[in-house]
């Protein structure tokens, strides 16, 4: 297996609230290989964004990261001091957010924001930084970049703002780009453009992309590998085609099953219940209450991530024991 660019082992994030400790992320393992587009998919509240922020060590009180390991290249990010961590942000690891317009500073012109970043991390002089910023705007498909350079976020459309966010995130040539639901606030046609751009820019700059989304369609269209998250835990990790052809975790099955289809005349399925409350989560599998294949064991002990086929990993007793059983259901769905 190729050496991972980012390897998260046993990452746990707790939030101390008045109701108790919220276990937003619980023992997440994730490996991202250089050059790939890794999808992280899951419902709202499944801990996708928290995981992303934890990679950058930007969990703020009342949240805290329980020591695990986040290995980026040869460093464990959780052991770095704040002074060592800061230069990595925006320079080696960048992030883009789901609402582009509110993620740009409203009082600074968009070009200026890119320029400042270059001067901060690359120590470029103002003239070079400016040319570099304008060139980057051109690359992400901004028309008339010299003019847009001076515009403010409120004067631009959401799609334009997201292009600018992408330009800003990639202008420093980061090794890893975390895209946290980059298309949520955009309409469908623009969203497709943005995702195409993201993919193209990733290939051009050689950045590895961690794409967080709740949309399996996006995963199918753009990712090479995918991790399915549920209630703060990784349920299943696999190559994208493998996941769609041979989903093992009942939650993944349900997710795939709940994609609306127009070609088959069926009622769209939903997943019963909600993500369980994360204040005092059940000790066993967190999907147990919503699962069709639930057994006694599921409620007692949390299933470990186990390799099913090659690097297709799954955390489910049912999948482990009766892989045949779930595969049959998978076959049904495929058909």
């Amino acid at each position, binding site marked *: 297996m190729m050496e991972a660019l980012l390897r998260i082992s046993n990452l746990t994030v707790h939030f101390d609230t008045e109701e108790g400790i919220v276990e937003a992320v619980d023992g997440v393992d994730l490996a991202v290989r250089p050059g790939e587009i890794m999808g992280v998919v899951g419902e709202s509240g499944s801990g996708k964004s928290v995981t992303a922020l934890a990679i*950058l060590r*930007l969990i703020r009180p009342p949240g805290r990261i329980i020591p695990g390991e986040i290995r980026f290249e040869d460093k464990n990010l959780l052991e770095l001091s704040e002074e060592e961590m*800061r*230069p*990595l*942000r*925006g*320079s080696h690891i*960048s*992030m883009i*957010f789901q*609402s582009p317009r*509110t*993620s*740009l*500073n*409203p*009082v*600074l012109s968009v070009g200026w924001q890119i320029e400042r*970043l270059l001067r*901060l*991390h690359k120590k470029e002089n103002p003239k070079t930084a400016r040319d570099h910023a304008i060139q980057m705007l051109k690359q992400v498909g901004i028309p008339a970049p*010299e*003019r847009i*350079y*001076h515009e403010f976020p409120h004067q631009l459309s959401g799609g334009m703002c997201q292009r600018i*966010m992408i330009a*800003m995130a990639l202008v420093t040539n980061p090794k890893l780009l975390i895209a946290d639901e980059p298309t949520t606030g955009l309409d469908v046609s623009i969203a497709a453009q943005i995702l195409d751009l993201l993919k193209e820019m990733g290939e051009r700059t050689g950045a590895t992309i961690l794409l967080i989304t709740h949309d399996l369609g996006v995963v199918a269209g753009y990712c090479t590998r995918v991790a399915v998250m549920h209630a703060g835990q990784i349920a299943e990790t696999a190559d994208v085609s493998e996941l769609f052809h041979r989903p093992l975790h009942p939650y993944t099955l349900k997710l795939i099953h709940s994609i609306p289809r127009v070609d088959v005349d069926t009622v769209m399925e939903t997943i019963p219940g909600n993500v369980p409350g994360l204040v005092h989560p059940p000790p066993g599998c967190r999907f147990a209450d919503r699962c069709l294949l639930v057994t006694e064991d599921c409620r007692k002990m949390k299933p470990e991530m186990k390799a099913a086929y090659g690097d297709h990993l799954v955390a489910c007793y049912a999948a482990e024991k009766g892989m045949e059983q779930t595969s049959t259901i998978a076959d049904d769905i495929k058909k």
Partner: protein
Amino acid sequence: MQKEEPRLRLTRLQIFLRRLRRNTLSFGALIIILAITLMAVVAPLISPYDPNATDANKTLFSVSLKHPMGTDIFGRDILSRVIYAARVDLLVALVATILALSIGSFLGSLSGYSGGWLDHLVMRIVDTVMSFPSFVLAMGITAALGNKLINVVIAIAITHIPIYTRLIRGEMLHIREMEYAEAARTVGNPRSRIIFYHLLPNCFPPVIVQATLAMGWAILTVAGLSFIGLGIQPPASEWGYMTAEGATYIVSGEWWVFLFPGLAIMITVFCFNMVGDALRDILDPRMRGIR
């Protein structure tokens, strides 16, 4: 691209002026403030007499064409003195406001962004300052530091710092949770730059309103302090001090000595308040389109 920018700026300024002009009274107030400021700047050119030239033959002349506001007990022309006094009042109030705004912004943004013990410390100090009646505090500070104009500036600045600190802190509490604050953190900005470069400017709209209103209060405080004899050194002219001088003659019928400097204070403070209110309406998006 060079020629695009001024066009944009002008358009924004035009929008701003249009909104301001819709409120006729405030627009008038702004014109008066600008006129008074201009008057202060070009005082030597427009004042008919030397403000400090005494003339024993002209004591307490009433309002006339030669002396539109009359003369005082030393025969000094009151119009000239009112014009020159604008320099002192506006300058002291302006410097004090800028000083208070700078220190208040620094403390407020640091305190609001950081939270924790620093926030507590700053807020308790601010609360302590606020627990004194501000005029009494300003009086005490001026008296303690020495009876000089610069100490009046310091006294007013100190009494005004809490206003800005609390206001900016409140804004910062809200703005530090915005997505662009999160974004500023994810790109590895140093903390100081996040606070003062990325977030502080976003706190400013309500602060500009507050500063305009506080200019009015500052002028009142300058005038009030010199009315009781603090700060201003005779024979320099200052509205509050002139009013105090004139107060003696109210009973004997020489009304012009106190009236004109008093009116100057009133009009100036009133205009600052009007402009402050109008700015609040303009900057508050909920008020847009009502007038």
